[in-house]
């Protein structure tokens, strides 16, 4: 275990009691491909990943994972993986997630990494445990290991099935700790009994009965509900505060440390009333940027770029191009807007601060809380109950620090639950982006030039998988490392960060060229890509849709679009049908077909849920989601003006897998969302001839483009 928890492995095993513990310490190099590994190392991620699997003396199997369950279904899929390689029934495994006191250190749950990176560690631990138990059984049964088989947690002699012993019997009296440092022998795909199937989710019953606990559902005697004084805009500074009105309310506690001002009460309504009575004044800087001026600003302050992909020579590319295309695309800031706002409950007891938090990164929060309250990290425990949606937005969040500070100060358990307005204010938005693409093709419709500049978003999704001899990708202001002043408030990872922006631009640019070449857009793509996984994925989506070749646009008010990409090492392609009301600018997506090559599919139904979820969530940023602002003031504070996808927007959705069992499982939580902008924009182009270069594609913007002709 790392020093973050201050507990060494020996101590950890002692706490677990007897039985068998398998610890895995796999180097990341074995599970990530070269470029992705290099990118992560640059960002300073540690190289170790760890899993613990415990087989207790009563045979109970517990998997400890620092990952968290926020709806993506990994509680179920990780359990499937452990059960598969340990050879025990799926139902017999208990999983503990996101608890810094008992789970192995983890960087956080994001990047569609759980299955492809943590999954191999879990499988290796389970496979190693199976080997240890088989060795013990060989001794116990007096039979050679080769003559043994395992089924449902029972080891038996193949030649005489009556000679058998259970894992529980084998674990009794043992105190074995084993570390796996190399890949253990995993079950082959053909042998799968639990992986590759879709058992009912483990979190289902609790979630349909209301019994599932989220951070805000923790209740302790004497718990106080806190509200904090918030600035009216980012960049504002508190100049004066008068809390006397709140203090006069019975049952209200006021905490005031510089600009950290909180009111606390035994129920949230009293706390809200107390907050209303606090008089605070702020210096608010004059706004210099807003929703419309941001795009030029991003380019102006860009600084020097990163250059993730370069090849050939742009000047040569221009010379070899029969036609060139210079198009600029824009997309707005977008909120994560999980249904559960950031929430935490903190309680201090015997020198240990325990915080129940809605977070995607419990170990990061543990460190942040410790720093905020002056505790050693090992005296801070973060427990992550179910998380009500994250999408990248709960990688950060100061609510846990706020709750811990207030719990320490008052000596009572304290809940800090952000209101929807606070959620919209402190969200780390998906960055606005300006993307300029200059591309070219020869007379035969072959790509000759790809000069790609992205400002504000980042690199992910900008990689050129088409065969373009002369190309340059320049990334200005990678999210998280943007130049000072680029964004007027915090930005962060939003479900497939940067990829939604990049695919919106790149896949429209390809479509523009296909139309100029008079070629069918699928054919044009296949004409310019040789990567076999992409070819197979494009063909799969076309087959599932029933694609017949023709060039766009048809301009009948109904259209179809296609777009593809690579995300989280998964290949994805979509086709969408739309109907456009050209008088009102309103667009309806009638059907979406999605094909994915994600390697071995651990849980087909769970993977489909993620594909459907990506498509449905994506429609929000396609049509309506846009965080409007004036300087540091956020104008959208609730769902009345910030529009999420609704039931009536639901298209018919078909999802297909491109079978690729030779490849270990790849990411599934994000890929299907990255093309939503382009696939709809390309369909609108087919329907109307209008090209939508800005997200979201509101009715007013669609109408404006249609009227331009």
């Amino acid at each position, binding site marked *: 275990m790392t020093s973050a928890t201050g507990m060494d492995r020996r101590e950890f095993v002692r706490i677990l009691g007897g039985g068998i513990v398998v610890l895995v310490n796999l180097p990341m190099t074995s599970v990530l491909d070269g470029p992705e590994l290099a990118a992560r190392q640059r960002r300073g991620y540690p190289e170790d990943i760890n899993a613990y699997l415990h087989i207790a003396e009563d045979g109970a199997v517990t998997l400890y994972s620092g990952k968290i369950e926020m709806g993506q279904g990994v509680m179920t899929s990780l359990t499937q993986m452990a059960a598969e390689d340990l050879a025990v029934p799926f139902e017999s495994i208990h999983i503990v997630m996101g608890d810094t006191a008992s789970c192995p250190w983890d960087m956080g749950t994001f990047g569609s990494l759980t299955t492809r990176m943590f999954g191999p560690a879990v499988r290796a631990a389970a496979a190693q445990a199976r080997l240890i138990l088989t060795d013990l059984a060989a001794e116990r049964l007096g039979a050679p290991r080769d003559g043994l088989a395992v089924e449902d947690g029972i080891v038996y002699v193949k030649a005489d099935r009556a000679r058998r012993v259970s894992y529980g019997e084998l674990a009794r009296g043992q105190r074995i700790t084993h570390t796996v440092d190399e890949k253990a022998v995993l079950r082959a795909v053909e042998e799968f009994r639990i992986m590759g199937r879709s058992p009912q989710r483990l979190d289902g019953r609790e979630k349909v009965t209301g019994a599932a606990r989220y951070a805000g559902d923790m209740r302790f005697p004497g718990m106080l509900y806190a509200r904090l004084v918030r600035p009216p805009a980012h960049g504002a500074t508190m100049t004066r505060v008068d809390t006397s009105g709140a203090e006069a309310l019975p049952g209200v506690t006021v905490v005031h440390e510089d600009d950290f001002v909180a009111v606390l009460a035994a129920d949230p309504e009293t706390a809200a009333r107390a907050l209303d009575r606090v008089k605070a004044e702020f210096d608010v800087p004059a706004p210099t940027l807003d929703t419309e001026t941001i795009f030029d600003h991003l380019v102006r302050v860009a600084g020097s770029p990163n250059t993730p992909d370069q090849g050939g020579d742009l000047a040569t590319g221009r010379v070899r191009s029969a036609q060139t295309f210079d198009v600029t695309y824009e997309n707005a800031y977008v909120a994560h807007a999980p*249904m559960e706002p950031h929430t935490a409950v903190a309680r201090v007891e015997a020198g240990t601060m325990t915080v129940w938090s809605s977070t995607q990164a419990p170990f990061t929060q543990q460190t942040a809380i410790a720093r905020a309250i002056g505790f050693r990290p090992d005296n801070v425990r973060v427990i992550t109950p179910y998380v009500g949606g994250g999408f990248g937005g709960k990688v950060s969040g100061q609510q846990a620090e706020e709750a811990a500070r207030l719990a320490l100060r008052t000596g009572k358990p304290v809940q800090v639950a952000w209101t929807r307005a606070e959620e919209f204010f402190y969200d780390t938005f998906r960055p606005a982006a300006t993307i300029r693409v200059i591309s070219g093709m020869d007379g035969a419709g072959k790509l000759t030039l790809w000069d790609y500049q992205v400002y504000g978003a980042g690199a992910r999704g900008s990689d050129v998988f088409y065969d373009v001899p002369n190309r340059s990708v320049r990334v200005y202001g990678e999210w998280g490392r943007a130049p000072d002043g680029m964004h007027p408030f915090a930005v962060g990872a939003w479900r497939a960060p940067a990829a939604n922006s990049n695919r919106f631009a790149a896949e429209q640019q390809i479509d523009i060229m296909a139309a100029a070449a008079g070629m069918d857009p699928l054919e044009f793509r296949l004409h310019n890509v040789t990567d076999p996984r992409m070819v197979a994925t494009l063909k799969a989506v076309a087959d599932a849709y029933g694609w017949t070749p023709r060039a766009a646009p048809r301009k009948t008010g109904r259209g179809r679009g296609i777009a593809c990409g690579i995300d989280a090492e998964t290949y994805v392609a979509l086709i969408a049908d739309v109907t456009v009301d050209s008088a009102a600018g309103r667009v309806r997506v009638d059907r979406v077909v999605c094909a994915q090559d994600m390697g071995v599919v651990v849980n087909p139904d769970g993977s489909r849920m993620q594909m459907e979820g990506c498509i449905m969530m994506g429609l929000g940023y396609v049509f309506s989601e846009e965080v409007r602002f004036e300087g540091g003031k956020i104008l959208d504070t609730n769902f009345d003006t910030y529009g999420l996808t609704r039931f009536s927007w639901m298209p018919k959705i078909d999802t297909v897998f491109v079978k690729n069992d030779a490849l270990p499982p790849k990411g599934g939580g994000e890929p299907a969302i990255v093309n939503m902008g382009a696939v709809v924009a390309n369909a609108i182009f087919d329907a109307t001839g209008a090209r939508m270069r800005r997200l979201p594609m509101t009715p007013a913007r669609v109408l404006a483009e249609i009227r331009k002709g």
Partner: protein
Amino acid sequence: MPPPIRFTLNGTPVSLDTAADRTLLWVLRTDLELTGTKYGCGVGLCGSCTVVVDGKAVRACLTTLEAVQGKTVLTIEGLARDGALHPLQEAFHEHGGYQCGYCTSGMIMNAYALLEQHPTTSPDAIVAGMEGNLCRCGAHPRIVAAISAAAGRRGGSHD
């Protein structure tokens, strides 16, 4: 001392000595520790706090205690009986009509009221009836499938 607030909650009479202008959502979640009903937006825009009052779906965040005086309130915790899931809960579970689960209580309670009023409703009517409930994870197709399945079941309720 004002008279206590009395209503029937999940089949059991309750009597609360508290201010009548308090919000049902917070009284459920704090005083009564029924945390299945969720806060999502606080102003009736998302449906996460949907409960059923006298057979109709209401937003608990916009409902005062005074407004439920003498009425029958059903929350997600009151839907399963003796450990047996309500057909809607079963259908949500079977069809995967949830992901993060945070909007799920509100979805199920809204669907419950919808099916109470229109037991054999069509998918289009389900979509229309659920329009005011927000789901960020994008579980919509499966939520509609789950409600359709429950609507199609004969004797689609405990009663």
